[in-house]
């Protein structure tokens, strides 16, 4: 069989798997389909699917509320600390849901990855999307508690979408990075569990940021807010729950200070996209 020169021009070149692919439409369609499917399975898989989904943060909230507010009297001086606590838990759960799901996602979907060519980044991205769906649903009981405690809708709520967008950027970047890293290093999973645990205590969830400012100093509070999760939670507390929670820009001393955690979230995203893109072509053979 002779290969003519003109044959070299046929069709398209097959260059192996990529992270995102050339067809954006395909990427989103697949990401969306996978996330929706998993979400549906979780909800309709068992009779009490939705109930359990809501109970998870609520039970954690009940325990923490009893221990920290009931016994240790933490956050006693803040208005509606119960709502602020629940909000913090729900935001943090979005973060852990997405990243813990994403870490093992490529390995869990080995069957698919080794047998079909599709944009690899779809898998961790759909994990982040799936966690976002959960998060939005978990905001429903937060709103109920807020209104029950006397909270009202205000102009401050306009800050919610950009805060969630920043969170999503941060979480998606980490999901991409961790999932690709786990393919080569299997101890990323337990390491990440410890890091998450540390972040949980290092983020003003159980306590309010003012405790840090008062007892250690504003500088420490500012340092803490470099964590995009801390800024997100603190901003939501300020804009949604009560203006008495100091806003991150107050802590940083200027409005521009808020750009720092946003930049960190963007760097995480860029790092995730870069590392995943670098690894994408060899994921299938490394599994």
């Amino acid at each position: 069989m002779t290969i003519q020169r003109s044959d070299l021009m046929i069709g398209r070149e097959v260059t192996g798997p990529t992270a995102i692919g050339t067809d954006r439409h395909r990427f989103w369609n697949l990401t969306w389909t996978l996330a929706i499917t998993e979400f549906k399975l979780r909800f309709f898989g068992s009779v009490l699917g939705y109930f359990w989904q809501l109970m998870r943060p609520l039970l954690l909230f009940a325990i923490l509320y009893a221990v920290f507010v009931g016994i240790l009297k933490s956050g006693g001086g803040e208005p509606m600390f119960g709502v602020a606590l629940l909000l913090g838990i729900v935001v943090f759960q979005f973060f852990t849901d997405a990243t813990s799901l994403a870490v093992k996602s490529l390995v869990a979907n080995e069957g698919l990855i080794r047998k079909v060519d599709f944009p690899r980044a779809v898998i961790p991205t759909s994990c982040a999307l799936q966690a976002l769906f959960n998060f939005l649903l978990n905001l429903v009981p937060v709103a109920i508690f807020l209104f029950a405690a006397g909270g009202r809708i205000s102009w401050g709520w306009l800050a919610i979408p950009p805060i969630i967008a920043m969170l999503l950027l941060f979480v998606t970047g980490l999901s991409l990075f961790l999932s690709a890293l786990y393919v080569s290093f299997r101890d990323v999973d337990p390491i990440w569990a410890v890091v998450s645990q540390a972040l949980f205590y290092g983020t003003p969830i159980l306590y309010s940021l003012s405790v840090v400012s008062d007892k250690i100093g504003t500088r420490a509070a500012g340092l803490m807010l470099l964590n995009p999760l801390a800024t997100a939670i603190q901003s939501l507390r300020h804009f949604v729950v009560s203006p008495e929670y100091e806003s991150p820009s107050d802590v940083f001393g200027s409005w521009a200070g808020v750009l720092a955690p946003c930049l960190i979230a963007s760097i995480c995203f860029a790092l995730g996209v870069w590392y995943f893109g670098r690894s994408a072509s060899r994921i299938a053979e490394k599994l």
Partner: protein
Amino acid sequence: MHSRSEGSTAVLAEGVSKSFRVPKHQVHTLKERVLHPMRRSGIEEFEALRDVNFAVETGGFFGIVGRNGSGKSTLLKCLAGIYKSDSGLIRIDGRVSTFIELGVGFNPDLAARDNIAINGAILGLSRREARRRFDAVIDFAELRGFSDLKLKNYSSGMMVRLAFAVMIEIDADVLLIDEVLAVGDAAFQQKCFDEFEEIRRSGRTVLLVTHDMGAVRRFCDHGILLDKGRVLASGSSEEIGDRYLDINFAASEAAAADAGAEQPAGGGQPSLGTGDAEILGLQFEAASGGISGTLPNGAKVVATLEVHFPSRVEDPVFAFTLKNGAGTPLFSPSSSWELAHSGTFAAGETVQWRVSFDNILGPDRYSASAAVTRQGGAALCIREDLASVVVTRSAPTGTLVDIPFAQELVSPTETKQEVSR
């Protein structure tokens, strides 16, 4: 599907190579990396594909054949874009669809409807295309009325039908298929075969990866034979079929030689029987000569069974049986009738029993078992899988045997007269 001119190239591979780096000491964790930062783990390069070249014409049915570990599945994955090849060029004209396994990504907790939608999304269909495809899939799988049933409640037959329908009902120009034929019962395989004929007629290009020469002969017009990552032969399916039998035979002969080194008696199986006779060997030789162990179809063949008698034996019966690759016995000559009084053999005597026959066997690898018994059946010596022989033929018919036949053309006018008379 766009129309493509006949004779154009649909798939082209030029100098495709792929190697896997297999670390001798696998670093699986960050901990190991941190504890031994200086240790450069020795990496072994495993060359799965070496400089593979081929081209497939639009509408062709192309076979990629090889034994296990020959690199054929790696090649398919490179073509499919699942693996990235290290060097070389792969170009494909049109939409590609890969089937390495039936029902990839099926979720047993979801209904057929959802699974078809997910499958469509994975294969890159838009939602509108996927919806259009849904009815076609359900119809092909004959699962009307079951589309909202969860897959875990499907019978295995229904599941396979659905998986196959999903695979067929995608409007791809080039299909890459990996041995999915191996699954399912005979009726299902027949359905697959029928569907292959259909695909072939529809002008789509198919690349089939298999180690089943029967499937290659049946469907493929061209193909390549891979061995240790290299293209050993390329051309018509008959040509590569013969080469495939050759390398398979060489491999089993090497294995037999290995076994023989450990077990001086030779052959695959230990001998059975009273031991009053000892089968030394069984050889097949084409009357025209040629490569030993390879017999061209249509030639005269002489089989020689050599037997040693440690003790005196009267009128023994000699026999052997040839079984094809599937284990079906096809030829079993015996001395019991024509040579009932084979004579008396003194202790220590050695004799050769020769059988000549016209080789009408179809191309395959055959294994031979031999036996020496007393009149009436008491076994003196039985040797299973004693020898192995390959039958080749330039133009195989795909049948188990090629019975010689005579033919003539009769003028139809004469026939008519006979009828009218």
